[in-house]
């Protein structure tokens, strides 16, 4: 049995130890991730908008890769299973979880980021360049989706026509233009005009598209940003072609150019035995794209030269072949190319389509263009997508998880 004194001494010791331990830091920590509520400060807004840009770049990068083999820009020369399907014109919904997710995230962070910007910046929103950029990213993310997906799905909602993305994009570009003009920011105003010209064309509003396009200087470009700074910022199309040989120019229409077209640069790599290097699959000749040579190569979202072609296509749709050829040749001159000619619509449409293909090569645009021309019935009809998938379906993950889609 304990003595009373001993017991008291021990209890006191226990109490002291308990107090000491109570003073110990027993909290748990996970520095790094940022709780959602902590973003609601003005100081966090530049990073929030940079995040919109970063997520858009990730989406553009992957869609540029997938789109290149879904369209007629590159051939598959590697081992990736998904690209194998895409090159054959097949798009299994389970193989587009990544690109669907990336594009949707780019749209979501920009659209909802605008709401957060308004809430946090209050009256400062109108005068902030961040507001312009956020609207531009929302616009371009929607344009990217609209040009590539089969159906629009907004924030877990039901399926809508893909043109919903163009409608939303037009609204965001219009808002960006208003803010840019109010702030006197010409560069971003051009980005808004160019983006709106693209989606107006996508919506079939060719007059509106041509009007916007005419306001953008030929030398202007607005890019998705890439960097060697971190892997996430890399242009992976550059990696997959400069390092891995997963895609090749071989067996595409561009392989006929003999490397003369500065808009579609490519070369070949020789083995030590003097033979042409094969792709990652070990059998397909590897013709290396040279448009994106480094992991930090930017991918254009809009260019003044494309604006000329939007105006040319608008002219063709009115039957104005000379006017269209004139605009096409302005574009070719900008690249140092000799003028082209076409006398009839039947000659002019293929010319225009190939010019657009060259100007927007590997910019995640061609697949959408082909869908537009494949759906047409006139001389602009392009049959490349005959028997092939014409758009990116709603991904398996979206279908399974979205209750409005039966998930």
């Amino acid at each position: 049995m304990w003595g009373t004194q001993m017991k008291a001494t021990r209890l006191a010791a226990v109490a002291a130890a308990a107090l000491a331990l109570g003073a110990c830091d027993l909290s748990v920590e996970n520095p790094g991730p940022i709780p959602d509520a902590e973003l609601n400060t003005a100081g966090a807004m530049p990073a929030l908008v940079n995040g919109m840009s970063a997520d858009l770049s990730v989406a553009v990068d992957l869609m540029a890769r997938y789109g290149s083999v879904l369209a007629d820009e590159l051939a598959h020369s590697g081992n990736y299973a998904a690209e194998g399907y895409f090159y054959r014109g097949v798009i299994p919904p389970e193989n587009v979880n990544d690109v669907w997710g990336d594009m949707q995230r780019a749209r979501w962070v920009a659209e909802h980021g605008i709401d957060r910007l308004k809430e946090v910046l209050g009256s400062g929103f109108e005068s902030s360049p961040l507001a312009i950029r956020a609207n531009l990213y929302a616009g371009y993310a929607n344009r990217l989706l609209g040009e590539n997906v089969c159906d629009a799905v907004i924030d877990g909602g039901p399926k809508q026509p893909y043109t919903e993305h163009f409608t939303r994009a037009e609204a965001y570009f219009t808002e960006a233009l208003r803010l840019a003009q109010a702030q006197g920011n010409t560069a971003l105003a051009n980005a808004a005009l160019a983006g709106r010209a693209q989606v107006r064309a996508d919506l079939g509003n060719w007059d509106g598209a041509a009007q916007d396009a005419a306001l953008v200087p030929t030398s202007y470009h607005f890019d998705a940003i890439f960097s060697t700074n971190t892997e996430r910022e890399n242009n992976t199309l550059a990696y997959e072609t400069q390092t891995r040989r997963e895609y090749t120019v071989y067996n595409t229409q561009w392989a006929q150019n003999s490397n003369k077209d500065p808009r579609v640069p490519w070369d070949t790599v020789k083995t030590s035995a003097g033979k042409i290097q094969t792709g990652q699959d070990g059998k397909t000749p590897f013709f290396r794209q040279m448009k994106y040579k480094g992991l930090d190569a930017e991918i254009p979202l809009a260019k003044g030269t494309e604006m000329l072609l939007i105006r040319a296509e608008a002219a063709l749709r009115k039957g104005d072949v000379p006017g269209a050829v004139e605009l096409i040749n302005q574009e070719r001159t900008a690249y140092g190319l000799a003028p082209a000619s076409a006398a009839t619509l039947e000659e002019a449409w293929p010319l225009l389509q190939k010019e657009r293909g060259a100007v927007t090569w590997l910019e995640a645009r061609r697949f959408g263009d082909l869908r537009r021309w494949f759906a047409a019935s006139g001389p602009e009809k392009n049959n490349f997508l005959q028997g092939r998938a014409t758009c990116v379906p709603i991904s398996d993950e979206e279908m399974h998880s979205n209750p409005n889609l039966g998930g």
Partner: protein
Amino acid sequence: MRFPRSPAARATVAALLCLLAAGSPAAAQQATGRVQGVVRVPGTQRPLAGAQVFVPGTGIGALTDGAGRYALDRVPAGSVTLRVQMLGYAQAERTVQVAAGATATADFELEETAVALNEVVVTATGETRKREIGNSVSAINAQEIQRAPVRNAQDILAGRATGVNVLSNSGQPGAGGTIRLRGNNSVTQGNNPIIYVDGVRIYNGLTPTNVYARQAVSPLNDIDPDDIDRIEVVKGPAATTLYGTEASGGVIQIFTKRGMAGAPSWTAEISGGFNNMGHIGPKEDKTGMWLNRCRGDGLVTGTGVRFEDPTCPASGSWLRNGPIQKYGLSVRGGTPDVTYFLSANYGDEEGVLPTSGSKDGGFRGNFSFHPAKTVQVALNSSYNKRNTRWIPDGNNASGVMLNVTRGPDSNFKGSGCSDPDVVCVNNAEIFKSQSNTITDHFITGFTVDYLPSDRFRNKLSVGYDYNQADITTVLPFGFLRLPSGQMYWNGWRRTLITVDLASSYRLDFGRDWVSTTSAGGQLFDSRLNNTAVTATNFSGPGKPTLISAALRDVTDDDRTRVINAGFFGQEQIAWKDRLFITAGLRVDGNSAFGESFGLQPYPKLSASYVLSDYDWWPKSTVETFKLRGAVGESGKAPGAFDAVRTWSPIAGEDGQPAFTPGQLGNPDLGPERTRETEVGFEASAFGGRVGLDFTYYKQHTFDALIAVSYPPSEGFLTNQLENVGQLQNTGIEARLDLQFLRRPNLEWSGHVNFSTVNSKALDLGGQVITLGSLARTYVKEGYPVPGYFGKKVMNPDAIADPIIEDDQYLGSAFPTKTIAPSTSITLFRRLTLDALGEWQLGGHLLNAVAYQNANKGEWFPCVDVQKKMAAAATDPSALNGVTALQRARCTTDGTVRDYAFWVEPTDFFKMRSISLSYDLPANLIPGARSATLTIAGRNLFKITDYTGTDPEVTDVRDYSFARRDYYNFPTSRSFLATLRVSF
């Protein structure tokens, strides 16, 4: 981000302190004497080493030496009860009269028995006799492994205990394996059992994977097998309830050797041998996938593409015999009050491929002393350092298997070939990359046993587990595939603090009833620091560091601290020492629980009934029979911060600070719970010659944590954990022990471990869990966890075009049945042959090597088929004899070929080990008390229809749960000679 302090943690700490304060001993001085003797096996009279001889209720005890001798000093004078016990033998007890200052002699004979109910095992409440336990506990003792050529702790577990499944993952020396106890009962939270070493919990996972090797090191394997005294495996939640959250995957307890009273006893061990690889790949391929042969004939693909590799070693093979050497030295001794065990070891093992190998060394100090009569303190510390030199492997464009087995399609095209018309490859370039995982593992802790009386027992364990890994891969400047060079570095530190207190009090009611009340608590403080950097573009040649590179990208930086704390209470009622009813409750708190979750209770109830203690029991035939049953719960906590919605900091706009959606968060997140019911019996018959331990179990995991995907259109792309699923595991485990012969000059015994695991996802909240789409591995309701799903050839054996159905179940990813027979034959008490084999049945593996190589004409089983398929374009009869499955697998038509066709059964038998040991005459080595020479082989052969290189391999970096054979190097065989001498 910081979280409020855990109330459970505080409560536990307070409880620990209160219990700690219970009484202190008062040492007493009295007259003492000495007891000595020898412990032998009856009949054969073989001396028994490592038996525990002790005076119950005191700290006095010792282990027998190699000659079976023991000596106990300072034994109180008078009538003293001595008890002797050892795993696998019936306990013996006798009373000895000890005179003050004199030496008494007491020899013992221990009967070998398959079922020793008075054997003591360690539970969460402390040491307990097996007869009292209502669940199955498997134990592996040092004797079982002493002669076996085990490479590491993971090897010990393979085939030696029921319900334990070990898959080696890779043939690279140093690679950690996958261990499962009764299968998988969690989809998202891992299924690794928790591991204790001498009462200190250690990290139970693997280090981060080396990006180039695609494999990782297991800290479990840092425990030197020669230091291990025994391993106890507690397999299901019914048994692990009191271990709390995280214990539903089972518990492995490792006990290292302790000192013993007496003069220093030294043991030295020296091993030498080599690793050797037999034929690799399909038997049709005489070149062994161009690994066995890289020169001469056969360097041509099925499509006729010839190649040459001037960098192929002069031996004509990439493979070599990799030397193995290992040295160990230990000493144990002490006085009745202070004992010690000290050991040191060093090992160097080369792989069968150039540059691969593993070198490790470490030391251990285990001390025990009695600061007072009623108090025993044990201090156990160990340190191990390991340098694993990897080969680039797995799903790695610069990997050995990926390039060498692709012949002319190696990514390492080069020059120097004699024939200008062949494809020239330089695969030796592969070995210029350097991949290492260098680990430091330090475990220290102390245990205080305070026994103020026979009735009142207290145990406090405090421990610290420190793991550090320095993981690097260097592609030197000028490396063929990346001339500018690259370096990956991963600095990883993981620490775990354990505070564990258990007390029990026994109360007798009359002659027949005994109540034992136990209570205690545990606190675990787990910290992780992990930083990864990729550095690219070195300025020039030379040995680089991270700052040698122009581009440096910090790709990961985790610094987390998680606290898990809980307390338990248990009441056991015993009747006549033959019926034991035990009820317990564990209550846990965890910082990962969401706001809506507080403390989590886990109940248990078990019963054990020793029927053979009744007079009516036919003891002459079946001398021991115990029925047992248990039901209990355990759980798994979600990840440390899964409940919180977060954004991830990233860089964007060329290095500018940015955010992207991180984790959606779920404030209602709680632990998943597994409830298990198990029933079984343990029986020993015919004088201990036959033993049978049988268990049936059924586990039901509810509130299973499932990573639920939310619509990507809502912005957060990562899946969010929710408590929505239900899983089920059922199975049986049986161990049969047979003593065929017990003659003075011939002993022959055999054992068979048999286990089944049938898992099923009962409810996943409507989700299909994708573990790896390219691995075709999913978790689906109604199917094993996990399973392979995908396209299936419905008419595999028909001589016809394949009929293919989508989304078909293809098989369980993990084996469902394990049969491990072993035998031991001892001749003339000196020569012993041990053998252990293992069947693993019911599992499947995706053979991605065949899928990829077949497409290139480099998978030899497909070569003839592909020729016939090509010929069929003009002559359809060419396909006669070609089955639908062969056509589907071997086609190069991209619209048909699919990974799923290459999901193959992995049923295999492996001869895990064979050893032949000879106990040398004592006078052969001057001064030696005993010496044993052992010649052994490990993984000597396998029998399987799996067409890949090894049915056990997987790419660890690709998937943590799914399994895929993607150019992973197979396991090699080893031959070892070992001399162990005790002085």
